[in-house]
């Protein structure tokens, strides 16, 4: 069987093309040879045309071989381009090289322009300062917790219906649903008490700010990731009256002298008696408006006397010690203080938003 050139020595011709590609050593060159190799005037194109002169049987076989060669050439081109691009990048990086040890700081010129802290940080700081002035220390706890700290030690045993109060993100470690992103800052209470028992450092007067997570679709009032501040006092004879006093002092110190607080009964598994605390609506100053559903009050957080079951879980003697705890949203304080209509602005990170805080 005879065929017309180039199909009788297609393999050799292909090798020539591939060698040509391999020999190219700059991206410019590669771009130029690209049209010569696979473009309209390339040998491949010419061969494609000459297929027409073959008879049908030969045409099919030759066509297939030609396709194979085209594929090889195109692959080789792409590979070569990658190599050359990488080289170019490395060269550029080498040219760019800067030994930062040689930077003479006093000669660096940089514009003078103050920045702005985040709203959460600003708010958290102010809250911390209020509580430190009231005699609290500031503590922190981890964001990934076991079931024990986030729930069970807080008197929320597994499958307890009260768990429905928190939409929980589970972390894929250990047995299913045993490691969580903390749903509140309350697990820090457990850490504080366990540590104090272990080191014999009771009493505790601490606040613990931090980031929490709830599996809740964000809206104008809630974010799935948010910040709380937790308060815990464990002492010989602190009472519900002390708790109400602390909350009232805090409310006035943070929101201003014309804002007051009040308690109403509520349920939290880790406190008993428990209360929800409300403050005078900061929008209407108590007159009644849309924000407070005309009641003049808005809910800020929860509080209560530490439940004896919690003391038992951490090994504190309920006959000798008593305590109270409270918690509320830092972001929510910020929202009320600055009248932010939509909480999601906090994670938008628009510098025009940030510029308002200092």
């Amino acid at each position, binding site marked *: 069987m005879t065929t017309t050139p180039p199909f009788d020595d297609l393999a050799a011709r292909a090798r020539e093309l591939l060698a040509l590609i391999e020999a190219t050593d700059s991206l410019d060159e590669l771009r130029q040879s690209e049209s010569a190799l696979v473009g309209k005037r390339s040998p491949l194109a010419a061969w494609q045309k000459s297929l027409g002169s073959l008879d049908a049987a030969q045409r099919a076989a030759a066509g297939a071989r030609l396709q194979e060669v085209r594929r090889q050439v195109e692959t080789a081109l792409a590979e070569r381009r990658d190599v050359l691009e990488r080289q170019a990048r490395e060269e550029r990086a080498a040219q760019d090289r800067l030994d930062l040890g040689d930077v003479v700081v006093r000669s660096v010129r940089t514009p003078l322009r*103050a920045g*702005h802290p985040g709203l959460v940080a600003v708010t958290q700081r102010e809250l911390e300062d209020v509580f430190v002035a009231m005699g609290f220390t500031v503590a922190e706890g981890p964001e990934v917790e076991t079931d*024990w*700290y986030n729930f069970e030690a807080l008197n929320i045993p597994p*499958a307890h219906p009260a768990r429905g109060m928190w939409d929980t993100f589970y972390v894929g470690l250990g047995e299913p649903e*045993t490691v969580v992103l903390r749903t509140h800052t309350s697990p820090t209470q457990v850490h504080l008490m366990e540590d104090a028992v272990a080191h014999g450092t009771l009493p505790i007067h601490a606040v613990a700010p931090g980031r929490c997570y709830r599996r809740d679709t964000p809206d104008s009032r809630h974010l799935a990731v948010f910040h709380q501040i937790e308060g815990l006092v464990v002492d010989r004879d602190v009472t519900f009256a002390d708790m*109400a006093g602390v909350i009232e002092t805090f409310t006035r110190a943070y929101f201003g002298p014309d804002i007051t607080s009040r308690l*109403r009964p509520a349920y939290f598994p880790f406190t008993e008696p428990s209360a929800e605390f409300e403050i005078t609506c900061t929008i209407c100053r108590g007159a009644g408006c849309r924000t407070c559903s005309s009641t003049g009050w808005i809910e800020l957080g929860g509080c209560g006397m530490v439940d004896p079951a919690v003391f038992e879980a951490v090994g504190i003697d309920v006959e000798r010690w008593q305590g109270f705890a409270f918690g509320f949203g830092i972001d929510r304080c910020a929202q009320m203080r600055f009248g932010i209509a939509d909480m999601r602005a906090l994670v938008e990170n*628009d510098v025009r938003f940030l510029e308002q805080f200092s």
Partner: protein
Amino acid sequence: MRVALSWLREFVDLPESADELREILDDLGLVVEAIERVGEPLEEVVVARVDEIRSIPGADRIRLVVVDAGNGPLEIVCGATNFDVGDHVPLARVGAVLPGDVVIARRQMRGVTSNGMLCSSRELGLSDEHEGLMLLQGVENRLGEPLHEVLGIASDVIFDISIEGNRPDAWSVVGVARDLATRLNRTLRPARLATIQSSLPTATVAAAGIDDPHLCGRLTVSVVRGVSVGPSPAWVAQRLESAGLRPISNVVDASNLVMLELGQPTHPYDASRVAGRTLRARRARPDEQLVTLDGVTRQLARAGRGLGDTGVDCVIVDGEDTVLGLAGIMGGASSEITADTTEILLEAAYFDPMTIARSSKRHGLRTEASVRFERGVDPELAPRAVARIVSILSESCPNLEWLADPLDVRGIVPAPPTVELRGGDIERILGASLDRDEVTRLLEGLGFSVTAGSTSLFVIAPSARLDVRHGAAGRADVVEEIARLHGYRRLARRSPSWAEPGALSERTRLRRRVRDVAVDLGLYEVWTPTLVSDEEFDLVARGEQRVRVTNPLASGESTLRATLLTGVVRAWARNVERGLGDVVVGEIGTVFTHPATRGGRTTRGGVAGATTLTLPGEHERLTVVLGRPEDDATTAVAWWSVLAERLGLTDIVVRSRDDLEGGVHATRGAQLVDRETGAVLGQVGEVEVDLVTAVAPGMRERRLGLLDVDLDAVADSLRVRRRDTVAVVPSRFPSALLDLALVTPQSVHVQDLAAALRTSSPLVESVQVFDVFRSVSLPVGTRSVAYTIRLGSSDHTLSDEEIRAARESLLASAVSMGATLR
């Protein structure tokens, strides 16, 4: 829970207004989420008769209807077609105001005048019915009379009350009424109950049993004969609707009504469809299944995902051991009440709350019954609930027969605790003392029994108060009830004080300083997501093990971040897109590492915290991206130098490296290393170009300075050297300044050489680099580094000779590092 005021008033006198009651309920911890007013008289809505219907030329959707509402013909344009001449319909006259503040006015349509509106039931707020006009029956002689009078609609107020999880007793109309009666010191009236009239003992026709006394604490079974299934009396239907439940049939409705009213869920079975008229409670066996009333096939007794969930389901079975229903949650289809039912088996039981809670969660099945049982239904309530159902049912079934001696089998029910309130206990918890008689009155009002000892009160909780515990916890529970009923707002407040001073933590102080310095230098602090996508994680931490969330809200929020950098670059890029990009952005935040890799945190876990678990490492970092036009790696180094100075870090070397990870530019990055400890405190340089492209495709290529500091390392006194706490008073004698320009091999670090110079002579006070330059005139692989060296002594002015000697020492130490004087 929706509770109608009229229903509450059946149990307690409540002359107060809805708003006054709301205040009281809120203060009792029965928080009113919303108040709905129903059946408010609709002014100017009257009965009208249709006298004539005409088409309107050019209109095919509306017709002209002539009605008579008692004072002659009135033309109304109407779009509905479900009525004929002679029918009676509601007419809203001109001036009427319909629900939703729809004001009816005279209107012109297609050249005709409409003098009011004919209404559907929904338009009047009476039901959801909107298929045409509401048709009125038996009102022929009442044309023009107000509709609400004709229909006998009484106005009512519905409170939507949120019942807290520890108040199973309050999850009923009576429960709410009991709180109100106690607070207001009024009488609580009992519900009307039926008495047994049949002489035939139940046991002669039916049987009941409990196989697992832990799962089912009480099972009562009644037989009720002479049932005719049909619609409920109007008052029953209205009550159910006021609570948001749909009336179904008299039997089901009576069961539901009693659940709402007294709090006891019950389950009626068609007795003829229950084999052996037998109901038994037992634990489901593996491989059993059940088709529940919602048509779903449930696989029973399978272990669940929750901690310690072994898959216990309590089921009700018949005399042939066939599963009829998931106890306390949902029944099966096989024994459902039908229109033909004439005899019912009525189950009223107490199930173990935890078992119901687990089953309900595992099967994803929350019902009105399950939410009550999982919180704890009064184990003593069943007989009363059945008597109440029979009483209601007898209104619609005149031949009703309730068989004598209903079956009553007992399993294990928690015994009501006796709580001792010692003298001073209330004051010790509340910080206020309450009158002993008042305490007794409040507790007795709630059904507690109170016995006075010499100083103590012995309090026994009523069976409904399954939330009240033993011992110290029970004391807290009882004191809460006392405080709640007395009124939290009436309790004293006190400002406590203690000896221990308040203080920020070390870390808080460090973080504040870092933030202040960075903000002063120009940082805009951002807050970026903790949960990122896998792709984003890979940009910086490719190949590292991920810490994943198993139930993310969105697939792009499934992995705990290992770096702040991608988020910060994205925040910067977003601002650039908005034309606000001429800024430095950064974050102080937590990043996470997988416990199997490094820095895991070992902590308590497992059931009862009895085991140890290693959780992800949590590390705090400051990550800053310098994105102003002239920013680059050198700016980042300058920022670091200011920060290090302000943090009192004395000897941190900026060491260039080509193998940095975490999104740092390959040839323009360096590690921050404490020279003495060798600890790495972070990295500085520029952001890798590929990372910027990946996070912000299409962004014009530009240099972005990067500073990434490990705050855990900075805070760790073992890893980082800080300025001495003993201050040195500078010498009063003049010091000498010496400039040295040294040709230094590229491999010798400017700061290493400076450190060598500093220790080369005791006279060296300080060494400052002031210039580094490269030139072809210098030997290959070297650059010139120029230092200003300050020499001095604390007790005399240096002589020329001393300065010369010091210079020799400096040079010698330079030479030992491979540097020569230029």
